[in-house]
């Protein structure tokens, strides 16, 4: 089962984890990842300059892309359940941005499946972050080369 949510509202991570546990009896491993808003101003030294981030998304393409990588992950690692939630709109410091949770028969499948999904999402899903400073100024976050490299290593591993 695949469940995908792109939403402005905050989400309850523990409720989603509970639902991953209440799945089929052949599930032996649940692996989850949560991404959180952090202070990541490049080159700045002052603390707490960040008010939050503004997240924009090309929603129809994101759903289309996430469905594709979820089907690939299910096929490759035989995952039982996949749950992905990603927030858009304004998010405050320390709020969860993204959740990826998977359940499968064994730990290695679940670890790899979860890591694969997160690496692909990060490198290819059409989301854009803008940092909003306490001063009211804002700027778009620059994409990082290593995110692409992490995503591509899964192709090489195949």
């Amino acid at each position, binding site marked *: 089962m695949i469940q995908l949510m792109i939403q402005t509202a905050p989400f309850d991570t523990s409720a989603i984890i509970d639902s991953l546990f209440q799945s089929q009896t052949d599930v032996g491993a649940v692996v989850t990842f949560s*991404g959180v808003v952090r202070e990541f101003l490049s080159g700045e030294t002052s603390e707490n300059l960040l008010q939050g981030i503004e*997240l*924009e*998304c*090309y929603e*129809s*393409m994101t759903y*289309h*892309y996430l469905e594709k990588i979820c089907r690939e992950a299910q096929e490759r690692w035989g995952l039982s359940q996949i749950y992905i939630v*990603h927030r858009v709109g304004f998010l405050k410091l320390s709020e969860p*941005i*993204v959740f990826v949770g998977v359940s499968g028969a064994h730990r290695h499948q679940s670890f790899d499946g979860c890591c694969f999904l*997160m690496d692909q*999402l*990060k*490198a*290819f*899903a*059409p*989301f*854009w*972050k*803008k940092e909003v400073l306490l001063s009211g100024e804002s700027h*778009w*976050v*620059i*994409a990082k080369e290593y995110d692409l490299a992490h995503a591509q290593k899964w192709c090489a591993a195949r």
Partner: protein
Amino acid sequence: MTEHSIKVLYFASFAEKLQCREEICSIIELHASKQAKESKEMTESTEMTVVVDDLKHYLRSRGHEWQEIFSRPSSVLAAVNLVRVKDDFVLSMGDEVAFFPPVTGG
């Protein structure tokens, strides 16, 4: 959207700089723009197709901001009908084309 048009979307920093999120472009205008660019090489028998790069060329002619964004090929990603494509992808009537900067989600 008329039958001879495509929908073009812009996201994030592109939408801000261009002050445009969505517009309808006429395929006929794109053909004309391409023909003007290639008039010397064109022969009568050539079947006219428009690819993503032709659309970028057409958009560059709109002025400074457009020129600046669409002149840097590595920092402009394109998708047609929700799937990432390269510059040589052939456009068809009714397509939804999107241009956006490298992604930063997660």
